[in-house]
């Protein structure tokens, strides 16, 4: 760690220090409720996948996705579920699926693609699948979508 030699936390002497929590609006939902919600969505996605309704499944898992601190477990469940959807979609269908999503959902999907790419070897993460989705999503939503993923502090 480059900062390891810094023994004194000078921020505690600064009354005006900018806290992480001030940078974005916190999720108003209770962490336990978010976790329950994520589990329910996982079940809903399974039944939608059985009917081969990929756009429906993506909307269910990505709308109001958990963000912020204290919801790590819900985030993990959401990522796992999302990876199942991404991995089972045929490459030829991806563009059509993405086009049917709302702008909000497209932005959230991009966040998860980057989250997945940052965790190589974790669970069902497959680099080639994620890159395939990334390419198609960028074609539809533009580079602006990537920029929003990078600026948004509401990390998934």
């Amino acid at each position, binding site marked *: 760690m480059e900062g390891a030699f810094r023994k004194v936390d000078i921020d505690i002497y600064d009354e005006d220090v*900018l806290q992480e929590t001030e*940078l974005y609006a916190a999720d108003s939902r209770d962490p336990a409720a978010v976790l329950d919600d994520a589990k329910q969505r996982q079940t809903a996605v399974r039944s939608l996948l059985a009917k081969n309704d990929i756009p429906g499944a993506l909307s269910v898992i990505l709308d109001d996705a958990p963000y912020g601190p204290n919801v790590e477990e819900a985030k993990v469940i959401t990522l796992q579920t999302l990876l199942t959807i991404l991995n089972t979609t045929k490459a030829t269908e991806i563009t059509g699926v993405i086009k049917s999503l709302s702008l909000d959902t497209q932005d959230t999907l991009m966040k998860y693609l980057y989250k997945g790419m940052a965790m190589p070897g974790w669970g069902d993460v497959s680099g080639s699948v994620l890159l395939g989705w990334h390419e198609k999503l960028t074609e539809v939503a533009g*580079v602006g979508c990537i920029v929003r993923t990078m*600026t*948004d502090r509401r990390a998934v």
Partner: protein
Amino acid sequence: MPEIFNLSQTPITSHAFNADRSQLVVSLNSNDAQIYTRKGAEWVHTVTLSEHDKLITSVDWAPNSNRIVTASQDRNAYVWQEQVDAETGKLVWKPTLVLLRINRAATYVKWSPKEDKFAVASGARAIAICSFDPENNWWVSKLLKKPIRSTVLSLDWHPNNVLLAAGSADMKARVFSAYIKEVDDRPAPTVWGSKLPFNTVCGEYSSPAGGWVHAVGFSPSGDALAFASHDSSISIAYPNGPLINIRLPSLPFVSLVWTSENALVAAGHDCRPVVFAGSEAGWQEAGTLDDVNAPKSPEARSGLGSHGSVGRLNTGAFAAFRNADTRGQSGSASAHVDSKPLTTHQNTITNVRAYDYSAEGVSKVSTSGVDGLLVIWDVDSVTALTGRLGGAHLR
């Protein structure tokens, strides 16, 4: 057709014209500001304003009182006025000190509509509202501080000379009262409020996906506020109505100007000015002023060719890496690929300003960029373009 002037090989940080557009002040990414004078079809460098000892970040020219204000990273601002020199009898630009009282760089400066005040944004989480003190012959400032949490990046004055919009790196656009008792008459009530003591916050809006607010602008009536943020989005706020967000498929904008009550031009990292049109009922992108499909030299169409992606991603460098990646081509194979983007500006546009304007609105805008170009665009030429752009959209 846009008028294109190549002013320098260095980036143009900021530019401003005088009232009749015969002169132009620019900051060429240095400690000095340069004044250019229009001679026929070109701009000739005539005066250098040197007083700052760090980079000049912003310049503004008050059209009626013919004064220039410069703001710099050296935490100072100077007001420049053309005066007769006592010794030589010639007209020279003389600086007046401004007591800013900020401890970080000044980032942006803007004259108020009546030109009796100006506002300086800074990295010190503050905006200095400056007015002239004739007794001491300098400009004094009063600081707007609360509730700014980070560097202020842009400012714009409401036409009533009292309200000030500020865009900040804390991802918020705000509307403040910058009422100075000694200077201002009591302002008439506006949609932003009626009681307006200094530092009243009349509006606060967040960028939709947490981007720095790079640019703010009041509509000509002052009843709406537009802001562009680094999350590739542009928002239009109506204080008693909706907050409209438009997500862009392209790179973020860093500057914007309203051309009428229902239209604005924004430009930035995508290297070309884009027109937005709408009203309280909704806004959308109306097209670009930069007709990239216009016939240009043939090699300019190479690169990604029919892929349709315009701007940064269509450069030869990008194509070279792409070819190396997907086709294993490298070096000589891509050497013939033209490395110029299709847009007129070859790099980020830093500044867009109203160039030709009347009571009805703005008919021409000027842009300056990191590529050292100054371009003057006809605001109406977008109408012819929209049809041809069709569904191609922004990418």
